[in-house]
């Protein structure tokens, strides 16, 4: 236990960091030697030597990360053609010679190294004590495609990619406002992963923004490979099974959340962005809820809430009722269950555990395997568990129904991270039901509710706006009011500019014709 605690304690000293904060010298060879020293044994770093007349220069870049064409056209060619010795200054090079759109001047060698690693090209010229960063990133990246974890029937088909710039651009395409801010940051001592904090100025609460930044600044880790690293490092209650930060692949979901005053963190190298703060209900809402007509959305939301309860408690209820409270089952149903259970050698609790665990294994196997094999596994699993087990008298048919209904119920939860939490919690519930019956289930729900009520995400109660109750907030929790009635932004996140839309947007025949007359 003590060792474990030691492991949990962060130790900034253990992270190795080389000091490279030396200025760029006027002597090119010194600079190049220093850089070559730093990039020793890095075969993918290219030092391209240019000798244009009397000017000596070096282009430093990572092979495969730059746009070779534009460096060739606008960098090397220009320098070779036009450079004259007397006029060499950094400004001259930037303004007159290099014709790439984004060019920057740097004075420290450390910055040069950083920029090279980011995928920029650094130009070092003899007798100039500044370096020039040419931003011409290239390299192979996946193109924008449909988000696989959050597919919709109605709604945009584009999802985030692994490239930070593409992702911020996708959000910018949704919100063409100068109030949409993007703060860049690097996380990870070794990986130096670029992240972007996105928010809409004026909608976001300044305290929230400050808190997010403070928590991000706390991160000292060698590498960030996925959004999950950051999520676990900045969430409020690290011991809770419930996700306190939402993740999404969809730019439209990010945009919608930014418009409600939330903050999004986009991380380079992963198509998943983080959205905070998150409430429990947010995980039961799909982006499609806002695109379908509201009747359907209301129906689907009620369905989801019912099925969350089913996913959480149905197997445990079955176990509790069949082993402790047989008088609760209607007589005829009881005889159906009894006749199905007649040949089963296991107690209901063991049966439930066997089925639930094999269902989870099946699901896990299906996820890890290649898509084509995954299908075969699911067919095999359905056949084996659904039919053969029942026919062999190992598992009863009602239990198969219960488990499959529970499985389906857990898939109705739109957010995978919430679905997996609920699925996980099902097991303690089955154990409680197997030991204490309904009393155990009630006890479990009580503990769960206490925990949920206590939980906060970036200062916002996890169950809000239901607990604490805000009648206005309920417009978008169990139901989703039509867009013409959704006139205010959620009060728990937006403190200032609350009005979302104009008055009297509800369409009616009179309003339509007025406009028609004018045009």
């Amino acid at each position, binding site marked *: *236990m003590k060792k474990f605690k030691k492991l949990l304690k962060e130790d900034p000293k253990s992270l190795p960091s080389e000091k490279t904060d030396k200025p760029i010298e006027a002597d090119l060879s010194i600079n190049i030697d220093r850089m070559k020293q730093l990039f020793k044994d890095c075969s993918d770093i290219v030092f391209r030597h240019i000798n244009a007349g009397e000017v000596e220069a070096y282009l430093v870049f990572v092979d495969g990360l730059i746009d070779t064409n534009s460096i060739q056209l606008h960098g090397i060619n220009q320098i070779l053609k036009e450079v004259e010795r007397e006029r060499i200054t950094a400004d001259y090079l930037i303004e007159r010679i290099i014709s790439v759109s984004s060019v920057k001047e740097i004075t420290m060698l450390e910055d040069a190294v950083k920029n090279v690693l980011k995928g920029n090209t650094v130009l070092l010229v003899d007798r100039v004590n500044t370096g020039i960063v040419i931003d011409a990133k290239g390299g192979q990246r996946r193109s924008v495609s449909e988000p696989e974890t959050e597919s919709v029937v109605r709604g945009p088909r584009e999802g985030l990619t692994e490239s930070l710039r593409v992702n911020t651009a996708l959000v910018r395409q949704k919100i063409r406002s100068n109030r949409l801010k993007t703060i860049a940051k690097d996380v990870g001592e070794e990986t130096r992963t670029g992240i972007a904090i996105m928010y809409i100025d004026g909608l976001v609460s300044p305290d929230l923004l400050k808190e997010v930044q403070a928590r991000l600044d706390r991160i000292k880790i060698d590498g960030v490979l996925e959004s999950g690293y950051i999520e676990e490092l900045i969430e409020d209650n690290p011991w809770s099974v419930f996700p306190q930060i939402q993740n999404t692949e969809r730019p439209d979901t990010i945009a919608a959340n930014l418009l409600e005053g939330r903050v999004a963190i986009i991380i380079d190298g992963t198509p998943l962005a983080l959205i905070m703060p998150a409430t429990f209900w947010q995980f039961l809402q799909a982006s499609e809820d806002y695109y379908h007509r509201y009747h359907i959305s209301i129906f689907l939301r009620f369905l989801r809430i019912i099925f969350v309860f089913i996913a959480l408690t149905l197997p445990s209820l079955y176990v509790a009722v069949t082993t402790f409270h*047989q008088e609760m089952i209607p*007589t*005829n149903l009881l005889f*159906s269950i*009894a006749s199905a259970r*007649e*040949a089963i050698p296991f107690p209901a609790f063991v049966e439930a555990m066997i089925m639930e665990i094999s269902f989870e294994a099946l699901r896990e196997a299906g996820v890890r395997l290649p898509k084509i094999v995954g299908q075969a596994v699911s067919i095999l699993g359905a056949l084996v568990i659904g039919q053969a087990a029942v026919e062999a008298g190992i598992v009863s048919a009602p239990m198969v129904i219960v488990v499959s209904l529970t499985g389906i119920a857990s898939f109705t939860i739109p957010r995978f991270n919430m679905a997996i939490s609920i699925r996980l919690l099902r097991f303690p519930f089955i154990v409680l039901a197997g030991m204490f019956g309904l009393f155990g289930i009630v006890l479990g729900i009580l503990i769960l509710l206490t925990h949920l009520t206590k939980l906060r995400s970036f200062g916002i109660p996890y169950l809000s706006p239901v607990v604490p109750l805000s009648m206005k907030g309920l417009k978008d929790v169990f139901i989703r009011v039509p867009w013409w009635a959704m006139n205010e932004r959620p009060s728990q996140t937006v403190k200032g500019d609350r009005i979302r839309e104009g008055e009297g947007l509800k369409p009616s025949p009179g309003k339509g014709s007025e406009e028609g007359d004018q045009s």
Partner: protein
Amino acid sequence: MKVIRLMLICIISVPLLTGCWDRSEINDIAFVVATGVDKGAKDKFLYSVQIPLPSSMGGAGSSGGGGGTSGEGPYLVAQGIGGNERQGMEEIQTKLSRRIYLGHRRVHILGDSLAKAGISKSLNAILSQPRSRISTYLLISNGDAVKLLETQPRMEQYSGEGMREMSKTSINMTARNALQDLYREGKDMVIPIVNPAGTTKTDKTKKEVQMGSFAVFKDDKLAFSTNRDESAGILWLFEKMQKKSASFPVTKNEELSVQIFEQQTEPKLKMVDGKPTFLLTVRAAGVLFENEGNYRIEDPKTYRFIISKMENQIEEEIQAILKHAHSQGVDVYGFGWYLYKNKHSEWEQNWKNNWRKTLPNIKVTVVVDADIQRTTSIGIKEKE
């Protein structure tokens, strides 16, 4: 650290000390759906239970594997002798591999020999046992109760279910209602009578169950069982005629049948010379179902004629049961209970102690207000 260790000990000891010890699997329980009590020799009672066999109930999935219970019929009837219900059940238990579970008892049948001797002990046993439903329907058997448990109605899988369905549509006499009637002043129990019967006249197997008449009790002892008219009278009195048919002769050979869809019975008290007299107003509305004489009921004259016949018939039926019961000092409708509620002090002073003796002299007037509101297809047109 210490706190965590202490908490862990507490959490682990909670299930170990308390959990799961009253757990019982479905296949370790014998679900009793119907019980019967008969009077045995001396002070003993004969208890019998009906238990459906899960493996014969035809649920899917029971085909594989093997094992489990099986027998000739889809149910099992077991009998035990005992001085009280618990004792009888214990004797039955010695013959069964699964634990007897009374939580799903649908009907409780009391043999008529027992009914004559008094049933309050048997009723109290229902009330006092945990897991025994007080919504269990009560029935009196014509003959031994075991015989009814052994019947095998072809419509249902076991006779308990069939009797329950019949009780529901009858006067709905559950153990709770019966116990209430038993302990109410000025009210006596009425419990439906069942007897084994064949479906046709030539059917001698007597595998079906018939529920026709009612047992009228005086305190907890059977006073008499009703005949046909009196049975109808009881249904009218207890407002249970909905969805049942009332038939009445209009002329000698021609009868009309009306299906009742609305019925109310309302008592009204009137004191005449210090003696209570009652006015029972019965309202009934129905649909004309069968019209043997092809009467034109749209004709006001004919309608009034038919209605008067119908009202007479209903009044006769009600008077038949009231007279029979009151002559034996049985308050079948609960006029005494009405007095207890509405004239409580006078009830306590004057009538409480000798109510059974005064009952034959209580005058009850029955006023029937019948109505045929609709008719079904008129069929062949009447002759001009």
